[in-house]
């Protein structure tokens, strides 16, 4: 039975971490621990100034610190 996250592969996804960080990227894959491989990633650090960091290419995000996944999300309002 395919998981909901499977359906997000190939799409943009917005990930909220336990800390004040959010990640937006294109989902390439994931594993049983919901560690995720993303590309074209933008990292947002949620501060009063709304700092943003943009990274290129691919990222492996450890699932330990993920709080929430938002399929098709664009991240926090800047």
């Amino acid at each position, binding site marked *: 039975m395919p998981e909901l996250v499977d359906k997000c*592969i*190939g799409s943009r996804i917005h990930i909220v*971490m*336990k*800390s004040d*960080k959010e*990640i937006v990227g294109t989902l*390439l*894959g*994931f*594993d049983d621990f919901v*560690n*995720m*491989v993303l590309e074209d*990633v933008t*990292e947002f650090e949620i501060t009063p100034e709304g700092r943003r960091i943009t*990274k*290129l*290419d*691919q*990222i*492996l*995000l*450890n699932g*330990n*610190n993920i709080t929430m996944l938002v399929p098709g999300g664009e991240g926090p309002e800047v």
Partner: protein
Amino acid sequence: MSLRKQTPSDFLKQIIGRPVVVKLNSGVDYRGVLACLDGYMNIALEQTEEYVNGQLKNKYGDAFIRGNNGNSPSLYSCTTSKISPFVYNQGHQQVF
């Protein structure tokens, strides 16, 4: 651009030997060449530079970053351009 499904373990095999940055939750970055890592995401880096708040603080020939149970490195990003690949870690790590 064709989509290539890639699992985390595939990705990790791909980035060994490439320059990466390991970012700890404390805001400390370690930039070096990824020598190896294991299933607990313990990491060995070569030619490592330590950045605190964006400022270069130390250089190590070799660095071992311990992946604590549960608080292992979070993000690894490799680029094929001149920009250094980026490894991001949200957990608490020890560097030897």
